[in-house]
């Protein structure tokens, strides 16, 4: 069996499962945010549910429109906050100690290797980087999960993606996942699991693994996963009292497909509008003038990402025509970024440093684009209207390329500065 099949079998109380089977799993965690929880809370009431299955296992993170951008979002957040209080849900985050859901759940040790969970947010697949099975669902599924502590799944086929060779200068986890999506398409892994492995993944730090699993959904995947190894366990140490479960795919595990990627051939990537699959190597980008650069989001808002961006930005000045917005992924990351001097480098260069929020990634607030404007962003989606006006454009890239582009005023790599 693959690691994903093993995780699902155990959660279903079975010895074995096969792809295509529909099974019912016990959940270790259920997550929702300020956009999806309000509907889930309404459906929860319609189910005549009174209490959540376990208040310790329900996580509510208000991060999309927080700090609340208008009265409507304030009302939505209040509804979620009140529900958390009524239900005795301790893991409610909005301001102090908060941040972007997919960054704080792993950082605080709330999701751990071996967990099986759902979240009412499509990027819930991020936690596969820890060797957990985690997938996005809608609000009604989340409501059912909060009431029952269970969810049905169709066991997904696994695609094995083997990364070999060596990473070139400025090539990161973001570039690998953009390159892969460019190869297989935005529906290349629809309903399936992407299992990332190979020597390059083995030496990839956790930040890069989180970024890769975060974008599994952008290939249509149900989940992405990296089997826990020494890197995982070293990172995880001291984060939780719960006992992690370290599983791996069997040598004879069956994959529906194997994709091999020779990283020697992967240069820093940029995904052109309006689909993540429109990935091109930097050398094929041409001249693309930008108005905005966004560094952050659940994809690339980790401390390592900010360090990478700061390395490029330090001692330089953001182009006069560019708004460069830096959004640390959590309060803790922001504090550490202040302590390390990263925030100072950003501010000296002319960047705007914001409080943690999903804001601009989804065109919500804190950096919305006008018609005809172009942004380069470390976010995960570049659909029509994603960051604002339907006639604006989003180009996806790594923190290093996004930072370099902010300095140059046009898309480029750090070595071109």
């Amino acid at each position: 069996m693959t690691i994903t099949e093993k995780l699902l079998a155990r959660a279903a109380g079975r010895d074995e499962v096969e792809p295509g089977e529909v099974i019912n799993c016990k959940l270790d965690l259920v997550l929702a945010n300020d956009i999806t929880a309000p509907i889930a809370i309404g459906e929860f009431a319609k189910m005549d549910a009174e209490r959540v299955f376990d208040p310790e296992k329900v996580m509510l993170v208000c991060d999309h429109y927080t700090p609340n951008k208008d009265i409507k979002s304030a009302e939505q957040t209040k509804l979620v906050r009140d529900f958390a209080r009524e239900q005795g849900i301790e893991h409610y985050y909005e301001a102090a100690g908060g941040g972007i859901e997919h960054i704080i759940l792993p950082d605080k040790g709330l999701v751990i290797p071996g967990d099986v969970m759902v979240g009412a947010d499509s990027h819930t697949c991020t936690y596969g980087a820890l060797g957990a099975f985690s997938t996005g669902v809608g609000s009604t599924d989340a409501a059912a999960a909060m009431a029952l502590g269970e969810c049905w799944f169709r066991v997904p086929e696994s695609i094995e993606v083997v990364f070999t060779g060596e990473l070139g200068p400025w090539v990161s986890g973001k570039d690998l996942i953009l390159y892969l999506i460019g190869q297989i398409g935005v529906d290349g892994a629809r309903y399936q699991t992407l299992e990332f492995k190979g020597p390059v993944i083995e030496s990839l730090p956790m930040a890069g693994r989180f970024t890769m699993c975060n974008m599994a959904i952008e290939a249509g995947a149900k989940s992405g996963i990296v089997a826990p190894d020494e890197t995982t366990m070293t990172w995880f140490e001291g984060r939780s009292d719960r006992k992690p479960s370290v599983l791996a795919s069997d040598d004879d595990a069956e994959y529906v497909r194997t994709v091999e990627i020779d990283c020697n051939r992967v240069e820093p990537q940029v995904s052109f509008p309006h689909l993540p699959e429109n990935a091109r190597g930097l050398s094929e980008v041409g001249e693309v003038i930008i108005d905005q650069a966004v560094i952050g989001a659940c994809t690339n808002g980790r401390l390592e990402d900010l360090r990478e961006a700061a390395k490029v930005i330090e001692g330089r000045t953001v182009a006069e025509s560019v708004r460069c917005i830096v959004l640390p992924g959590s309060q803790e990351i922001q504090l550490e970024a202040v302590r390390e001097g990263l925030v100072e480098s950003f501010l000296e260069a002319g960047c705007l440093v914001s409080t943690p929020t999903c804001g601009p990634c989804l065109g919500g607030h804190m950096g919305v684009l006008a018609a005809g404007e172009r942004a380069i962003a470390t976010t995960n989606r570049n659909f029509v209207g994603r960051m604002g006006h339907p006639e604006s454009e989003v180009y996806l890239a790594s923190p290093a390329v996004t930072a370099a582009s902010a300095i140059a005023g046009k898309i480029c790599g750090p070595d071109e500065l």
Partner: protein
Amino acid sequence: MAVTGKVHKYGDHIDTDAIIAARYLNTSDPDELAAHCMQDIDAEFVSRVSEGDFIVAGRNFGCGSSREHAPLAIRTAGVSAVIAVNFARIFYRNSLNIGLPIIESPEAAESINAGDELRVDFEAGSIEDLTTGETFSFQPLEGIAAELVEAGGLVPLVKRRLAQGANSRRG
């Protein structure tokens, strides 16, 4: 049950931001959401759509975010079913959960044109294009998907389980 309506046709990878842009997600009011349905890729959709109409699209319909606001906006706008080559998985689950009928039929999705008049019989599994005279059949749903549709969505199913004492902490 058979429904008649006209077709609004779209291409591949219609994402949830196209169905309902995130800037409108500071509410979950179905009527407000429906007022902005498909806005960023088809600003005229809301004024053109009438009760019973169909959306016909290509591959991977509903890709992107997990927002249930997307099928909710489509349903509330009056659309009786979405017919596509195939669907993104979260959108598929969400549609079944809230009772928006969805039909996978690559043949129908490719042949049917914008503006055609369709008659869809959900029980018989047939799509008749009244404009061109073509007919297509589709597989009625099976297993958990059929159960969800039969129950009228996930809420009644969970309600029944809770009433049977599924959540031991309850009460």
